[in-house]
């Protein structure tokens, strides 16, 4: 199993960055952690194919790393600067409890991963892939639900995307190229639009705290 060691290292890094996100209180740290996560994930398709990775795997890795490692962080840092958002992420759930929740999500994902008899997962890298992807997905959802700042929700969305990406690499080892590019494109546009929206919200409300967006109800 020597070949799967780098993959496992990437997956462990993925989970550690998840836990870091749950535990860190500064936006800048969170944005950097998400960037590291994106860079690590970008390596997955290449690692999966080993040395003889086809050109499309390299292309995808390059595009994804450029997007998640450079474009998203710069964009979010810019929004952070322009909106004058508070520098603390202000969660509803305390950091310590969040980290424990993250561990719980991981254990749950492992249980699901062991129960799930998916066809063909044995073919792709490590048996940790599905659980790691699922845990990242769950933690991303938790980030979206438990943070009161619009920017945190954007970060949570990126984490959800990363989880799905891992999941996808594990399940099919890669869907058709065009679809992959479309998905990346969508993620890019989604983050872009969310950033613009957060910017608008900050201009209109003087804050980007979504828990105070509560005038529409019923």
């Amino acid at each position, binding site marked *: 199993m020597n070949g799967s060691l780098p993959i496992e290292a990437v997956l462990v890094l993925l989970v550690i960055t998840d836990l870091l996100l749950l535990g860190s209180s500064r936006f800048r740290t969170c944005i950097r952690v998400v960037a590291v996560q994106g860079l690590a994930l970008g390596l997955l398709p290449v690692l999966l194919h080993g040395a003889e990775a086809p050109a499309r795997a390299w292309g995808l890795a390059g595009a994804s790393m450029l997007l998640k490692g450079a474009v998203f962080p710069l964009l979010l840092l810019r929004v952070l600067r322009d909106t004058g958002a508070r520098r603390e992420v202000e969660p509803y759930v305390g950091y310590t409890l969040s980290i424990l929740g993250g561990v719980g999500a991981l254990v749950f994902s492992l249980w699901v991963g062991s129960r799930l008899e998916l066809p063909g997962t044995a073919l792709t890298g490590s048996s940790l892939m599905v659980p790691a992807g699922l845990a990242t997905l769950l933690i991303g959802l938790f980030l979206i639900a438990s943070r009161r700042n619009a920017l945190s929700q954007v970060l949570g969305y990126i984490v959800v995307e990363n989880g799905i990406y891992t999941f996808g690499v594990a399940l099919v080892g890669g869907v058709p190229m065009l679809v992959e590019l479309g998905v990346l494109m969508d993620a890019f546009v989604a983050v872009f639009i969310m950033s613009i929206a957060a910017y608008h919200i900050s201009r*209109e409300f003087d804050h980007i705290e979504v828990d105070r967006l509560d005038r529409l109800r019923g």
Partner: protein
Amino acid sequence: MDGSWLLWALLAFPAAAALGCLAARTARLALLVASAAGASWALLAAAVAVAAIFGEPVSAGAGWLYLDALSGFHLGVLGLVFGAGSLYAWGYFRRELAAGQFAAGAARRFGALWSGSAAAMALVLASNNLGLMWVGVEATTLLTAFLICAHVNPLSLEAMWKYLVVCSVGVAFAFVGTLLVAASARGLGVEPAETLLWTRLAGSAGRLDPAAMKLAFVFLVVGYGTKAGLAPMHSWLPDAHSQAPAPVSALFSGFMLSAALYCVMRCLPLVEGATGNAGWGRSLLVALGLVSVLAAAAFTVFQTDGKRLLAYSSVEHLGVIALGLGLGGLGAFAALWHTLNHSISKSLAFFSVGRLGQLHGTHDLEKLGGALRRSPVWGAGLLGAMLALIGVAPFAIFMSEFQVLRAAAEAGEADPWQYLTMALFLLGLGIVFVGVLRQAIAVAWGGPAEGDKEADGADGGRERPALVDALLVFGGLALVLLLGLWLPAPLSEAIGRAAAILGGRP
């Protein structure tokens, strides 16, 4: 393929129109381009739809684009809603232009996004690749988000943010489902590039891995169900509908929700085939449909905001469609027919309430009282559409809901539990009927609140309606009435062909 250029034209035309809007010099020109392009695109869509339904399925781009009877039927509905919406949008925004409330930049943005969303929805319908279909759905979310806040204010921003976050995350679930579909197709031994082609999957649905396909379907239903506004996932829907400009609300309810449900329809034959047609996927849809109908019924009773009321009514009707799909057989036919009826009636209702809101400065149904007297055309449109939506007898929605009921009764003969479905369905419809009828009567004949009378005069409450408005309203009402009384043979044939793809029968 001789017809393949039609599909490319279908996608390229609105994209070109969007660029045209961006290049337009004035706000007026941008809106005019969007409106005219929308109306003419609707004609093109109708033509392509007819070709796809009654001829051979049209395919293009190495099989990635594909239009058969099911998507053709939906394309027809889209054409209808989008064409009417484009015409209406011109009238709707013209007043705001005159009042100087709509800057050139905002108008250009609106026109471009409006045209672009047509391309995205057409992509959803025309793609044969499930991944590409997902890309289309996500693109509609992203393109329409800024349509909600065509007028930037705190409330519309709040609605837009909720829409963006809830739908993006929801649709992300659908992507997990799509990946699982690809995983379940491993055993088929197809080329990786063709793994997600619906035609390949549907052709050998029986050999898909059942466990993975079941899981995939759960994710797909939750994901696309969020976008379709099915009940536990509908939280974004009333906010977005109430804050968006009326043409956008009409497009949302009239077609975008149905487009999301269309994606579920595409996957239904796959899961049913993989699980041996035991009705596993269908029962999921029945449950979700019932929950939607009942939840929406509970919310409509106390709703006084006209657009929110209509939004909850959309949750109810999408629930009815899901229920019909779930019941299968006759239900599939009824569901598709209901899609058409609901799209027409709901667009009309939003058109009317939007214009009434513009004239009287509020969407509160109590303050709109006496609309029939104050602005006869739009008042009549709203009253007629509301009556149609709650299923008053000769309107088409009554007929399609009756068909769903018949499907439930038929299913009840095989499985007595389905009688419970039928009873709950009737209960939900009954609550909506009583709740909305009360509001509809108040709106049509009630008096406006005392304080509002002067405001009424100031805003020119008795405006002379334009010809195109009258055509939209009475044409729409006549269409809903006509379809209720007499289903033309070609239309029946078209719905029948589409339903056959879902494993239904007329």
